[in-house]
């Protein structure tokens, strides 16, 4: 028990130093723009189908599940606003971040873990190329920027899913549906929800890189790095969300 606790705190300490190095190196040239754009493509563009499908299903299911209760209270007209608010403030950011943790964090963990085990990271180091700058900074930065974009995309697709859900039982035109959503949304609903997605993105990238970069030798450790990246990133997302909701509650 004490040994596990010690390991956990050691890991948190190492991860903090790893993250600190990111803030140190992100501003120092050379800037790996090409690799950064490549990572944006891999992390962002290639995740679009997955995020679109889950976003649509989230909106549709949320509408279908909420409708009977609202109908019971005669508040069916609140459905579009309620669905949009739930999606934008909580469900889309968390679910999308969890999907990204599964897809991106594990992918980065496995990729860097495999590079570590096959000495590719060492090869960069001995060629006087900074592997942290080339591999880690680009990936963390790409995650920090692309995850919020994916969340906004999931919000939009989720709202379309909600529209489909409403029209299964009724006949609401899209303009009216959208008007109701916009009337119930405030600008302040978007700000905290968007800010927290940057943190989600940062931690998804950072944890994936940390686990991969610190994989010990042996192919088994690649699987462990990928698995550990998903578990840690998912848990971190929930913790961050809890903190974000508390802060939002205090200020908004």
């Amino acid at each position, binding site marked *: 028990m004490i040994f596990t606790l010690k390991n956990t705190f050691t890991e948190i300490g190492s991860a903090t130093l790893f993250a600190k190095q990111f803030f140190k190196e992100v501003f120092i040239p050379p800037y790996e723009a090409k690799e950064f754009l490549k990572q944006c493509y891999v992390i962002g563009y290639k995740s679009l189908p997955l995020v679109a499908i889950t976003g649509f299903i989230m909106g549709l299911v949320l509408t279908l599940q909420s409708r009977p209760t609202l109908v019971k209270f005669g508040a069916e007209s609140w459905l579009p606003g309620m669905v949009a608010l739930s999606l934008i403030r909580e469900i889309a950011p968390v679910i999308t971040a969890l999907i990204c943790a599964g897809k991106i964090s594990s992918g980065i963990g496995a990729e860097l873990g495999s*590079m570590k085990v096959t000495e590719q990271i060492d090869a960069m180091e001995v060629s006087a190329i900074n592997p942290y700058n080339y591999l880690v900074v680009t990936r963390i930065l790409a995650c920090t920027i692309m995850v919020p974009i994916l969340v906004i995309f999931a919000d939009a697709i989720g709202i379309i899913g909600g529209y489909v859900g409403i029209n299964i039982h009724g006949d609401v035109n899209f303009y009216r549906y959208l008007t109701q959503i916009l009337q119930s949304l405030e600008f302040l609903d978007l700000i905290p929800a968007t800010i927290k997605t940057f943190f989600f993105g940062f931690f998804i990238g950072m944890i994936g890189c940390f686990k991969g970069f610190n994989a010990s030798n042996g192919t088994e450790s690649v699987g462990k790095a990928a698995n550990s990246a998903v578990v840690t990133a998912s848990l971190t997302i929930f913790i961050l969300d809890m903190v974000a909701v508390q802060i939002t509650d205090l200020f908004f």
Partner: protein
Amino acid sequence: MIKEKENTEPKKTKEKSKTPIIQIKDLHKTFGVDNEVLKGVNLTVNQGEDLVILGRSGSGKSVTIKCIVGLIVPDKGEIKVFDEDVLNLTKPELNEIRVRIGFLFQSGALYDSMSVRENLAFTLKKHKRELTAEEVENEVIEALDNVGLSDAIDKMPSELSGGMQKRIGLARTLILKPEIILYDEPTTGLDTITSREISELILDIKHKRKTTSIIITHDMACAKLTADRIMVLKDGVIHAEGTYEELEKDEDEWVRSFFE
């Protein structure tokens, strides 16, 4: 042929008048709590010399050369490369030294997300930003020609055989025109013919580029072909030193066993 006791400097069989390029003194490295791999390694490599290090698996051969390039930080000792104290250099200073040292990894360590062309161009572009795309391409082709693999330029590492991967790894090492090359088991896992080809390539590079090398190997054919001098590592110290012919007739049965 000379042998030594633990932690003592081995006597030299042939005193070379050349300039020492790599000097290691009393190198110690322990992994974990009590896994002491290096217990006081002392060695000197002179300019233009090919030094082969022999030893059983786990005897610390790879650790020694990884300490030279700063991949592993030793617990104690002194490493001088080009007269610079590697262990007391800042990161940028160490990188300046690293550019002058090529390192061939046991596995080749090719970047598997990049094609052969990208693998070679990557290193070059990072260090010679002034080169045009055409100049980079020419350098890549020349480096591949040197290892006889210009046809593989568009292949991915996964499409290459073990021997080809090592040759491409060597081409990538050579593209920066290093003055020192450290070979970590260059022929391990290869068939006899390919091993000989790699060994001949090492010899060819030495003659053409006047490089200084340390070659870690278990392959005695490779050692015989490439070594100017051989050091045998045992229990974390240099146990014996001499030319191939000298060590082959050594009075120590353990040393002779490498040559049988």
